[in-house]
């Protein structure tokens, strides 16, 4: 093998001008593929992170006797859930209030809200640490009247951390009610998840709603990272032995449409994907775009290299004939040429990889939050590419395999050249 490597290396160096175009195709192609993949993965990871914060974790546990239940009933449900969860999972109770008429007031200025989430800041401390705070933090006050709002809302109201604002909303009986709450934190998120969403101390929300303590979702969060599908399935299997469970849903609206309340007392595990099923089409579109780009570039690289290399080998027919005359078998000749291709590809992939890292670094320097609607894909306004070594290695593997296969196919007849045939081809 050493001989082939040395021969291939020497050949690449001495014929570097001939191989320049092949090398360029390879490294540019790999650079583009890795760049697109990492950017897309980063965008999707950003969406996922935001969704995780918004939905309180990695999955939600809904249903039972009622979609909205008292805290006592919720505690019972939580105990059942916690008995099947790994020890590192964090559970918390929330009340999500879809705000039809919620407004915030501060010194006469007012802003409407879309969603207000009643949370336990203590219990969800690990999750709220993931927010990017412009000011303050998600602090649970003894008076249970804390709230965190987005920077956009804070800007419109003119508030800062520590200010007291008035929350105005209709109670469950339709009465207008107000409560004073303290803005303990202002977070950065101008995506659809965070822009008009605020997180308020659960007790304060119940007080202003003039309601008994009610819960409409139990959230489960894995601080160590998003759980795998097999983990979710294990939890599902264990839980289904204790309660009646709806199949793991792809779209939470399917569950809501079929839920019949106390009659069946059915529960559901709602993974993060099912909550953002509206975005699934967009996610699939992104994956498809990446796939098309990768496939196209792989085809270009493999066909381009194989057809160009075929010409190169044909021009080296004398060399091939000489080697054959010296006793080299066709298979050994093939190995020599394939080793050249392999070294070329490896060098190209390596340079492509390094270049892509540079491009990714440059791309992540620019604040792109000025692009309307793009904030969902950004982290603090910047692209945050994610490099999966496994994926990158798999991509390189695919390039190597397809190109070498293509070259093999191309060279299978050329390597059977005889010395006489090689000389004859010159004349």
């Amino acid at each position, binding site marked *: 093998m050493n001989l082939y490597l040395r021969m291939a290396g020497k050949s690449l160096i001495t014929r570097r001008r001939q191989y320049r175009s092949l090398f360029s195709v390879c490294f540019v192609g790999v650079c583009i593929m890795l760049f697109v993949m990492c950017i897309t993965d980063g965008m999707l990871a950003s969406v996922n992170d935001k969704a995780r914060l918004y939905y309180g974790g990695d999955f939600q546990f809904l249903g039972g006797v009622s979609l909205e239940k008292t805290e006592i009933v919720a505690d019972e449900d939580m105990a059942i859930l916690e008995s099947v969860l790994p020890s590192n999972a964090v559970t918390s109770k929330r009340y999500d209030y879809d705000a039809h008429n919620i407004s915030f007031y501060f*010194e006469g200025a007012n802003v409407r809200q879309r969603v207000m989430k009643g949370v336990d800041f203590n219990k969800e401390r690990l999750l709220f640490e993931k927010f990017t705070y412009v000011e303050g933090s998600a602090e649970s006050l003894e008076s249970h009247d804390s709230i965190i709002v987005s920077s956009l809302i804070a800007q419109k109201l003119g508030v800062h951390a520590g200010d007291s604002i008035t929350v105005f909303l209709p109670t469950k*009986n339709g009465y207008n009610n107000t409560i004073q709450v303290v803005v303990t934190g202002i977070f950065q998120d101008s995506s659809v998840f965070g822009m008009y969403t605020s997180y308020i101390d659960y007790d304060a929300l119940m007080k202003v709603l003039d309601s008994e303590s009610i819960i409409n979702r139990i959230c489960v969060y894995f601080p160590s990272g998003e759980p795998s599908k097999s983990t979710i399935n294990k939890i599902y299997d264990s839980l289904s032995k204790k309660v009646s469970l709806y199949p793991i849903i792809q779209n939470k609206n399917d569950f809501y449409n079929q839920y019949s309340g106390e009659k069946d007392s059915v529960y559901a595990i709602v993974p993060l994907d099912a909550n953002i099923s509206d975005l699934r089409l967009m996610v699939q579109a992104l994956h498809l775009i990446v796939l098309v780009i990768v496939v196209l570039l792989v085809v270009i690289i493999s066909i381009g290299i194989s057809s160009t290399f075929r010409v190169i080998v044909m021009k080296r027919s004398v060399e091939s004939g000489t080697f054959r005359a010296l006793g080299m078998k066709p298979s050994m000749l093939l190995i020599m040429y394939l080793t050249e291709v392999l070294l070329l590809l490896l060098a190209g992939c390596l340079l492509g990889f390094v270049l892509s890292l540079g491009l990714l670094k440059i791309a992540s320097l620019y604040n792109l939050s000025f692009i309307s609607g793009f904030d969902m894909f950004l982290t603090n306004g910047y692209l945050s590419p994610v490099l999966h070594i496994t994926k990158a290695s798999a991509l390189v593997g695919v390039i190597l395999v397809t190109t070498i296969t293509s070259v093999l196919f191309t060279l299978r007849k050329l390597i059977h050249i005889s010395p006489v045939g090689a000389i004859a081809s010159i004349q």
Partner: protein
Amino acid sequence: MTKKIFKILLPLMILSLMPICSFAITDAEGKAILKKSDENTTYKDSDFKADYVMVQDKPGQGKSETKATMYRRDSKLMYTIRITSPESDKGKGYVQFDESIWFYDPHDKQFTFTSAKNKFQNTNLNNSDLSPQNFSRDYTISKMTEVTLGKFNCILFELKAAVKNVDYPTVKLWIGKEDCVVRKREDYSLSGQLLRTTAIPSYQNVEGHLVPAGMVIIDNLRGSKINGKMQYEKTQITISNVSFQKQKDVVYSKQYLETMSD
């Protein structure tokens, strides 16, 4: 000595009790006054038509004026409001019938369902303020006090909501003792925060009906800090050209607004 002190104190005690004995309002009287004030805002025997001028003052942003003509048929719980000014809003209107309120925009020729809780043309007036008041039906009296409001002798009613879905769970009403008309109103949230103040300083007598000549509504939440001092938004309403003549039935229909906007 004790007798002397007693002789001085006793008349004083009697005098101090006299106002209570002479002017205390009974529950029945209070309810009657409240009911009468509701009746004064309702015109069951005839239609009502008037011109409204609403001047909204937003601190730091200036004033804006809206003119409208209002038609009411309280016997059928119907009304129509046609905006006549400014030019940008001319032709817009509201029509209520079958317990639904519709907003009409002539620019897209569409009717949109709206709610009594919504603001009228983004002023500080609620749509519900343009309808007859039903405090005696929707609220219970938690407290009554005789007070003086400027030059008016009033009964101050503190009311608590008795039904769901009224805008304000707590209302304070200053009702004139003699004429049983609302002179001032304060609307509070469930937690007791003052949300809105309405003052009706003057009324006009038209065909035996007492109709507000002017009103001021102050929004105690919205406003702006000007020179370090909080100033709240307010809307001043002037009502004129009041008439109780019967109007054509078509006036209280969507077609009327569509036709009048063309």
